[in-house]
């Protein structure tokens, strides 16, 4: 299976209102989006509003607006999701604690940020199993957190969001050479963290 063609095919179907295709896209991309959201939120905001809520809201709006999405170049779907996430984060920051209260009242379901939510019955799967993918993500974030901000940013832009080094250079306001060097060092350091 060629991932790229399928992604494009799914995108096209999702844009025409095919929910299953959209869900498949989300299944494919939500982890990347979660990491991007994590690093787009300030530390205090993260404590105030769970990144999961931002993720949910982003996906909700994405599902609503997918019909208006236009594919231009590789990575534009994730960039589009990122731009929605930016708006959601901005809204959350503006509404602050009110948003958080709403979230707790409305979506009373267990998650890391809602330890008081509904838990599955005892005979069902444990949360850790449901969140198996989430644990991998959490380990990744823990490791990224240990990197210097520069290193982390370049990895998120290039390896998570999937921008080309040229685009990443534009975003970071540096030359492509500088970004390449930064990426090389960042990945090296990331690898060292694992082996340490």
């Amino acid at each position, binding site marked *: 299976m060629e991932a790229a063609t399928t992604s494009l095919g799914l995108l096209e179907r999702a844009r025409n209102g095919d929910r299953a295709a959209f869900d498949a896209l*989300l299944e494919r991309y*939500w982890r990347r989006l979660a990491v991007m959201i994590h690093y787009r939120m300030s530390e205090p905001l993260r404590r105030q509003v769970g990144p999961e809520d931002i993720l949910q809201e982003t996906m909700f709006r994405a599902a609503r607006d997918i019909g208006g999405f236009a594919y231009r170049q590789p990575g534009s779907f994730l960039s589009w999701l990122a731009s929605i996430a930016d708006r959601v984060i901005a809204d959350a920051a503006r509404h602050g604690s009110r948003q958080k209260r709403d979230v707790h009242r409305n979506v009373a379901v267990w998650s890391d940020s809602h330890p008081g939510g509904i*838990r599955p019955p005892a005979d069902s799967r444990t949360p850790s*199993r449901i969140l198996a993918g989430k644990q991998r993500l959490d380990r990744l974030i823990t490791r990224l957190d240990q990197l210097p901000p520069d290193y982390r940013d370049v990895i998120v832009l290039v390896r*998570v969001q999937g921008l080309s*080094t040229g685009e990443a250079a534009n975003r970071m306001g540096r030359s492509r050479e500088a970004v390449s060097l930064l990426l*090389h060092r960042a*990945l090296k350091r990331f690898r060292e963290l694992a082996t340490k």
Partner: protein
Amino acid sequence: MTEEERLARELADLHDRHAGLEASGTQHVIPTDPALGDVIEAAREIDDALAPAAAPPRDRLSGYRIIEEIGAGGMGRVFAAHDESLGRKVAIKTLHQRYTDHSTSRERFLKEARAMARINHPNIVRIYSLGPASEPPHFVMEYVEGVSLTTAAGPLALRQKVELFQKAVDAVGFLHRNGIVHRDLKPGNVLVGPDLEPKVLDFGLALELGGSEHRLTLGGELMGTPQYLSPEQAAGETEIDATSDVFALGVILYELLTGQLPFTGASLNLQLEQIRAADPALPRRIAPSVPVEIQNIAMKAIEKRREDRYADGGEMAADLARYLAGQPVVAAPPAYARLVGGKITQHLGEIETWRRDGILSPAEFDTLRRGYERLVERDDAWIMEARRLTLPQVSLYFGAWILAAAAALLFLFQYRWLAGWPAVLSAALATAPLMALGLRSWRAGELRIGVAYLLAFSMLLPATLLIAMSEFGLMMVRPGSDADLELLARPTNAQLWWAILLSMPAYYGLRRFTRSSVFSLSLAIMSALLSLVTLLRMGLLKWLEEDPGRAYFHLLPHAALFLAVALVMERRRLSNDSRYFYPVAFLFTLVSLSGVAAQHEPYRQWLAGALPWTRGQIEYLFIANAAMYAVLQRVCDAAGSPQMRAVARGFRFVIPGHVMTSLLLLGWSATGRGEASREARVFELVLPLTAAAFVYLSIPKQMKNFLAMGLLFFAVGVVRLGEHLLKDRAVWPIGLLALGLSLMLAAANYTSIWLALRRSKIFSRVW
């Protein structure tokens, strides 16, 4: 260029070459420089952490070649595959990795698949086989080529949409009957092929596997499409049953009808809040061409409380089928009552203020209030109050009527082969099942059918009692054993009386049970009949023959009784029951008073004796009746209840006719006795004056008929005056012309004349 710079460029080039894969990763990337191995490994680690949880599928599952991924849900992925042996496409559903290592989940998945494999329905996707134990859990099913329900329904006419939708609902009903809840109904899960046959897919999979906790956080399933979620799901309840599916179907129907979703919010939380708490706009507000019946069905399906919805897809499909067949639908969504209930209290309050402010006349106030009160009353299932007549409905009542007629034949005539027991048995056999059928239909919510059966039962009940009594000779009592007093040859008056009296509790019970107004009507009619049969037993037939006036005289107390009973019922807030007693009371009063005036000899003689100048003419008695009506209407108005006020209006209505017709007739008879008689002159003058008085009497109680009748009789009076008293006097028509003109001019300048008179000294002195 340093070594590091060279490696970095190499890495960047490698990355950029693969960035086109939409962040697909470096799995297939082979570094040209071994020195990059470590860095590539790091990138691979990151990609692994970001990869979908499910393992990438093999090339083949169950021996079918995987072609592409066509969808993913919270619990698994769906692939299109090629069945090479049969040369057809199949769909394969897999279970997410995160469930596969969990034996309970896995077991449930397999159990579900087996349950679904037993489902065989043309509108439900078929399951072909379950994957072998050696492979990751999956099952193979029919590959459905088609578009989503909403897409397919887009260009269709409303009726075709409903037909298409009904098939899908029927299929969901089939699932429910087999104990399977779909849990994830949405237009994308109902695919429609080019033959316009819908196929329901993806059913039951969310069951057990998809607790709400992962759906909200991870699945993508809920995050993308909370639009079809039921309130209980939106509230995080895990108890999901068929009514949750009904809700989703209702949302889909709403969307088909209006092109909009009933619940939309700017954010996920607002959306869920809407689903839980908001009443959606009525479809007809958005698309006025939507028939009320279909709107009722959609609104009933998206009620917030489960018990207010259809119990399952089967019930909903049946109601849709009823609509398609042109029959009345069952749905009467409580949402309407909520919608209008509060508003009506508010409106009534406003109307009350308007009345106090004098914007509304009391009569207008009563009319408006009656209209509003009818709105909040429960929709009547009786045919006369039904919104439209349909073939089955009319046939139902026609059948009931034939039954009643047949029963009447049985007690009116004696049949040689059907005397005694057989007659009673056949009547009872027709009556008893009607009751049972009626109660059952009513309980099942088929109110219209239930009422028809129960009404037929209530018509047959007295007939059956009569047949039994006359066949067995029960209650035969004949007062004075005077056969001339009997109305019918066979059932005696006493039997008639007892049959009616004994069936009255049944009417009362049915009224209390169904709260349908038709049984109040029956009760009122039967009470009236009971009154008449009572008179029969007292000797009505003899009176009619010898002294009809006496018969009417004896009706008077019955009229008073009905009026009193109706007033008591209305006072006890049974306004629906009293509504039918008042007309009986009114009719009895009118008939008996007119009859007494026309035919009661002692009354006439008394008048002739007491007031000799009247010569005992009955016209005077009718004028006396009019005076009595005037008193009655005052009494009724004083009682103050809305229905009593309507009765008072009825009495007022007949007054001018009585008075002026009598005056005209008296005038004629006086003229007939002698052209120049003084009496004739008097009547010629009295008639137009009385008519003018009625014209102005129309003002206080807003009686338009006073005005109309007054104008009519005034013209008659004017002509009569011209005929005799003012014959050949030109001053008469000229005077009238002047009078009319000056009256009009005065009326047009009413205010200024009034003010001028008030300012003038003469006026104040006179006043």
